[in-house]
């Protein structure tokens, strides 16, 4: 009995923490009139999720009583907190210099009252009870939903599953989404108002993501082939359907896919945890910058004029630069890879992180070469037969082409002798060596190939940005690249695409919530890792490792222990 009470109290306290946090970051003030409703819904969701498992074990009355306790506890505390704020604000104390978001509008939103009522301290006694009521009602609703949902699930679970239908739904989904993108693109359609562009972007990204699942859902053989081709055709039309902003976002997403595919070789295949991968991205970008805008670099333009070459125009075009950038990046990979050959795991991680920072610091401080923090300006965009490919749509197309090329190479490598050697050293370095794998050579191969891909991505990135600065190559790029392959699913090529959409695309969709953008994104990252540690679209091998029978039993043992 007491145990059940304590559970309700605990949920109430945790709920209070969550709601207090939302208040402190100023959400109610942002929602204005709808704040009480949203807060009630938040409370309902929280309590519903918390009581989800209780609903399976206990009768409805017990569950509802817990919801009641949680609501009373959480509501009382919230009412006290908000009441204290209101009283302070009403008596003229300025809380804002310390707690930035505790302003009269924010507090007033909790009460559903106009701002002046709080600012001048004109609140009725009943007003102070309102937040408690809001939370209590939300909490009870959550408990009720938990009970009802449990009933519904229990009723449904008896029915037979319909795999064939779900499969076709999954396969049809990307095409439906693509259609929605087209429909929304018509000027006459005004769904979403001023956020229509963002909505379309979201739909386009969902379409790409759904396409990845559709391929997997299709049966091997003819069906999968036909669907892949149809999806590819859909993907190729995408740049022509989207507007400039959406193409710009998709472009950066696929540049990160290129980079992610490279990192996937290093981390996903070979298991070498590289936190300084941005170094190669930067090498690619700066190499292209020197080749296409030598006039921007004091040292280069000096050398060129000393040699009697014209220093005011690109040395090489975008296409001519590609092989040179690839070679430079590969050399960079070997140079930075050699000293760390013997390091393992986290030691490798921190050293590579250091390398990434060293490269950035050199870019920042070798002002003669890189123009320091002022960056290299006016890089040449890619051109083809005199046509400028520098606009967002064509950059997106180039990124798609680059992705296709890299994905093809990565796909073939994974199944080659080298690929198997990578997996071998990932699983057990010593055993792999004992089996005749030349560790140094194989690791350097991984570093060099991964670096090459990152260099290509860097070149395209530089061509897209036109002006590049050392700040574009901070540690956060490495973290993004690593996070995207893990979110997508390690070692999985489609996973990289999905991860890039999540990590680079989602924040752009979340622009609507401007200052809450990063907090929301970070919370999603944590939740995603907890809900799906193997990644959104794991490679088959990885999924079996994590959810295979043998592993399940060891996990159970661990749980029991």
């Amino acid at each position, binding site marked *: 009995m007491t145990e059940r009470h304590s559970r309700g109290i605990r949920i109430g306290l945790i709920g209070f923490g969550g709601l207090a946090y939302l208040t402190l970051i100023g959400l109610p003030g942002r929602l204005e009139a709808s704040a009480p409703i949203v807060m009630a819904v938040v409370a309902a969701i929280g309590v519903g999720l918390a009581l989800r498992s209780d609903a399976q074990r206990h009768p409805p009355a017990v569950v509802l009583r817990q919801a009641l306790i949680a609501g009373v506890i959480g509501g009382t505390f919230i009412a006290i907190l908000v009441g204290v704020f209101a009283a302070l604000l009403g008596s003229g104390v300025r809380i*804002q*210099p310390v707690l930035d978001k505790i*302003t009269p509008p924010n507090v007033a939103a909790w009460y559903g009252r106009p701002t002046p009522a709080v600012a001048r301290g004109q609140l009725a006694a009943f007003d102070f009870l309102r937040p408690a009521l809001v939370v209590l009602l939300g909490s009870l609703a959550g408990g009720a939903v938990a009970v009802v949902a449990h009933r519904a699930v229990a009723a449904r679970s008896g029915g037979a599953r319909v795999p064939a239908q779900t499969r076709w739904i999954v396969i049809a989904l990307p095409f439906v989404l693509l259609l929605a993108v087209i429909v929304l*693109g*018509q*000027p*006459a359609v005004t769904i979403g108002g*001023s956020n*229509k*562009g963002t909505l379309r972007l979201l739909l386009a990204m969902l379409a790409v993501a759904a396409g990845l699942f559709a391929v997997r859902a299709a049966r091997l053989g003819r069906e999968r*082939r036909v669907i*892949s*081709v149809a999806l*590819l*055709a859909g993907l*190729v039309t995408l*740049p*022509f*359907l989207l*507007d*400039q*902003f*959406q*193409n*710009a*976002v998709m472009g*950066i997403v696929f540049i990160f896919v290129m980079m992610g595919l490279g990192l996937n070789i290093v981390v996903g295949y070979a298991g070498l945890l590289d936190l300084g991968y941005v170094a190669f991205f930067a090498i690619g970008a700066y190499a292209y910058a020197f080749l296409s805008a030598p006039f921007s670099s004091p040292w280069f333009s000096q050398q060129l004029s000393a040699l009697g070459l014209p220093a005011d125009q690109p040395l090489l075009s975008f296409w001519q630069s590609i092989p040179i950038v690839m070679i430079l990046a590969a050399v960079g990979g070997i140079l930075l890879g050699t000293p760390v050959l013997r390091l393992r795991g986290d030691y490798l991680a921190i050293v590579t992180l250091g390398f990434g920072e060293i490269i950035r610091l050199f870019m*920042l*401080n070798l002002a003669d070469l890189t123009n320091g*923090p*002022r*960056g290299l*300006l006016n890089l040449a965009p890619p051109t*083809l*037969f005199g*046509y400028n*490919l*520098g*606009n*967002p*749509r*064509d950059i997106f*197309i180039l990124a*798609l*082409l680059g992705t*296709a090329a890299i994905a093809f190479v990565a796909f073939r490598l994974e199944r080659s002798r080298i690929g198997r050697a990578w997996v071998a050293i990932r699983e057990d370095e010593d055993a792999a060596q004992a089996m005749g794998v030349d560790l140094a050579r194989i690791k350097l191969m991984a570093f060099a190939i991964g670096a090459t891909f990152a260099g290509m991505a860097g070149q395209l990135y530089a061509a*897209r*940005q*036109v*002006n*590049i*600065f050392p*700040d*574009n190559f901070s540690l956060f790029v490495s973290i993004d690249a690593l996070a995207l392959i893990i979110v997508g699913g390690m070692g999985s090529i489609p996973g990289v695409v999905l991860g890039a959409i999540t990590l680079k695309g989602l924040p*752009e969709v979340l*622009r609507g919530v*401007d*200052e809450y*953008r*990063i907090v929301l994104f970070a919370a999603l990252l944590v939740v995603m890792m907890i809900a799906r540690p193997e990644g959104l679209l794991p490679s088959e091998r990885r999924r079996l490792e994590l959810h295979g029978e043998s592993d399940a039993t060891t996990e159970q043992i661990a749980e029991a222990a």
Partner: protein
Amino acid sequence: MKRPPILLFATSLTVCALLAACAAPAQPAAPAQPAQPPAEPTQTPTGPMQAPAPAAGPGTVVIPPGSKIRIGGSFALTGPIPDPGKDIRQGAEIAIDDANAAGGVNGFMFELVAEDGACSGDQGTVVGNKFAADPTIVAVTGGTCSGETFGLKPILLKARIPFVSPSATNPAVTGEDCDVCNRVALSDGLQGEVDADFVFNTLGFKKVAVMHDSSDYGKGVAEIFRDAFQKLGGEVIAFEGAKVGDTDFRAPLTKIGAGQPDLIFFGGYATEAALIAQQMKEVAGLENAKFMGVDGAYTQQYLDTAGAAAEGTYMSFVAGDTQKDKMDAFVEKYVAKFGIEPSKLGPFHGQSYDSVLLIVEAIKKVAQTDSAGNLVIDREALIKAIRGTSGLEGITGTLTCSPIGECGAGGVQVFTVENGAFKQIFGFGLQ
């Protein structure tokens, strides 16, 4: 023979795509506008269903009655310097409020579409494309940082959207090749040179050390100061860098202290400047050295953070014959709306207000109402109107745009801190 057909198909598709991409501009979307990017679906009238927008060519913005005049804003709301970024955004919001309180344009109100440029070129590009893709965006205020502005620049130039940056000080932001690029901030060059002159001639110091925060802005102004000071015949004993966000400067200061300079000049923002001013008191060789910062640090935040150590330090700022009444009125509205003194966050709120003011006044000049009651703004006319601004009374002074888009008012002022407040002792506007 399993895979090749797919591959072949895929390659042919991608090749088709590429060809289509090249062919696209051949279909004239807007023949009258050669500088226009390939028309976007949202922008081009595609059929008879199109709303009653008579002359809605891409070269004009047509605002139907009841809609607002949308001005984009790229602000550094996240990233390394969110405090000045937020200040700039809030300054712009006050300017929009004022413009609306004054009746807007022919009854049309203004709206600020704030986006996070994050002080990075990367985000600047995305924000720029977002504005360019939105046919309702008339003009842009921002970006906060130079790198961010370089991300916006090529895109807005192509989309024919004029922008006015309140705070990007890199000399290359404006130029003859860019008619949409304007700024209210003064280019770094001016400030560094005046500061060097002040230190060498007025203070009479011959031996200084220069520090910077490795940012585009801070290092830029520090380099100009160093070069100008050396040209005057002074000795720069050290040129040392730190990072935005560093809090412990004792090691580089100790190194500088070994040379016993008369003054340390720091290019960077308020927090770092305050910490250097404070920590140099602890370092051997710097007991009697003075400290001088630049406009990025000319804030209340500097005074609050440095505390007693701020006394007697010098700070330069770029401003015009600041209209004191206007500035006071602005600060009053700002505090009423946001609950915080603007100078607690950053130095550029005045410039931000003025860049919006510049845009608003130019829109007032070129906006016309058509027969259907729509407000029509011609983009090219707006670009010219902004560039043609002359004698506009802003809160940082009288704004006049030079032929390359330098619209900042006034000149460099030097302040010293006395009893916890800035007091001007040198430079522009001093009687």
